[in-house]
């Protein structure tokens, strides 16, 4: 059974507000219900993506907006939460259990999702920037990638964020020199190679093929896959030149979609750290292994047009949904005109968690 994305909504990402998680979610869900032609009573699923420890958020939010769905639940998969929620929603509709599911992602800046405490293989180096730096060092050593290559990615994504009023860094201009000279965190990564945890909320509405007949501009999920390699850095560190979960999820998603990387016009790639965008180009198959730093200069693909995690900020539970929302808006020709790209038919969303132990790939088409 086919599944489409009917409508999307994003609240502005910011450092913090006085709103609670459920209040943020309600605002965004109401926006979705105002945008869609699907009636509130027809919504038979609500999946809340968050790393918050707050209890029973699915049912609390259902009650606050007056939903009585078949399934109302909270889902956590660290940075990959939002795309995992879409995966679950897709599966429930594709199997015929549900017809219409709202996926909403919410996070506060100081989320338990910003750090994985369980992984003792990281020793005392438990901040994510340490594993990211080890990936970067391996890429530099094996493929001659350099600081300037990473700075180009940060510059591109921050420039894109300057065209996205919902982005945390919408009003902040970072030039190439600012990035290269920014504060060193863990070599070779500097502060402007790293995303910033923030508050945010993004939602979307998934519908069945039957309900999609009432959608103005349905965007179809053609392929969706996830791969999980465990949770510890030890599990994936035997080869730091690549992220295996991304490679496996990509291969499966392209197979489902009967497409290849060159068929994709626009992609949202997980850039919590600049090096991860380089690895994503290679592991998804947009370019050969080791050529990621050259690929960014070739401009063969629109990437991270909303500003990526680097420019938008990273509200952990909302990120995967906001990445998807951007691709939907671009394919619907509904992105703000300043950042609307022309002639996009097919898009890809890549999201991942915890040193690449988990990755999701979604391929969509208009």
């Amino acid at each position: 059974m086919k599944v489409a994305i009917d409508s999307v909504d994003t609240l502005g990402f910011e450092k913090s507000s006085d709103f609670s998680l459920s209040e943020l979610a309600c605002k965004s869900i109401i926006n979705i219900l105002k945008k869609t032609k699907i009636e509130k009573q027809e919504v038979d699923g609500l999946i809340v993506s968050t790393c918050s420890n707050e209890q029973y958020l699915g049912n609390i939010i259902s009650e606050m907006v007056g939903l009585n769905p078949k399934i109302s639940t909270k889902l956590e998969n660290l940075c990959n939460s939002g795309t995992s929620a879409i995966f679950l929603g897709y599966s429930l509709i594709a199997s015929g259990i549900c017809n219409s599911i709202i996926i909403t992602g919410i996070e506060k800046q100081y989320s338990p999702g910003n750090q994985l405490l369980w992984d003792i293989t990281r020793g005392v180096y438990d901040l994510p920037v340490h594993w990211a730096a080890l990936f970067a060092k391996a890429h530099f050593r094996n493929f001659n990638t350099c600081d300037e290559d990473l700075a180009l990615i940060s510059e591109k994504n921050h420039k894109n964020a300057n065209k996205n009023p919902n982005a945390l860094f919408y009003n902040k201009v970072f030039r190439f020199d600012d990035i290269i000279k920014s504060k060193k965190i863990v070599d070779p990564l500097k502060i402007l190679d790293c995303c910033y945890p923030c508050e945010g909320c993004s939602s979307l509405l998934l519908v069945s093929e039957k309900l999609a007949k009432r959608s103005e501009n349905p965007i179809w999920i053609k392929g969706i896959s996830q791969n999980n390699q465990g949770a510890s850095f030890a599990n994936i560190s035997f080869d730091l030149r690549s992220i295996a979960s991304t490679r496996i999820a990509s291969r499966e998603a392209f197979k489902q979609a009967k497409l290849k990387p060159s068929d994709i016009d626009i992609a949202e790639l997980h850039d919590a750290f600049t090096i991860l965008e380089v690895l994503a180009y290679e592991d998804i198959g947009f370019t050969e292994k080791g050529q990621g730093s050259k690929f960014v200069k070739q401009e063969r693909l629109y990437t991270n047009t909303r500003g990526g995690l680097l420019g938008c900020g990273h509200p952990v539970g909302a990120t995967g949904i906001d990445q998807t929302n951007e691709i939907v808006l671009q394919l619907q020709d509904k992105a703000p005109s300043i950042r609307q790209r022309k002639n996009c038919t097919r898009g890809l969303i890549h999201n991942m968690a915890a040193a690449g132990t988990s990755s999701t790939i979604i391929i969509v088409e208009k």
Partner: protein
Amino acid sequence: MNLKEKIFEKIENGTFLSTFCPKCKKHMWPPSNNCKECFTTTGLKDIYNEGILLEKSYSHIVGQQGYFGIGDFSGIRIIGKLESNIEIDEIILISKVKTNNNNKILVEFKKIDN
């Protein structure tokens, strides 16, 4: 006492242990009560303290300044502090191990003396 607590207690007494499957003859790290290959109940065994440096970097983060890297010790991989700027693929030894107040394992690696 759970497995992690047992391992932490041993570290405080100066011994660095991991779980070990007697059937597969393999260490498990992070520790687990059962072998993930054959499900046999594991025991605790000393981590072989001679390994190889897989990758390294330098942290500028306050409190963590200095070289650090990931080492492989007979299949167990852990990130630790480097005593000096050791080269990748060099043989290293676990020279120090202790736990800190944040419930983390602080490991130090040094270059093997020839």
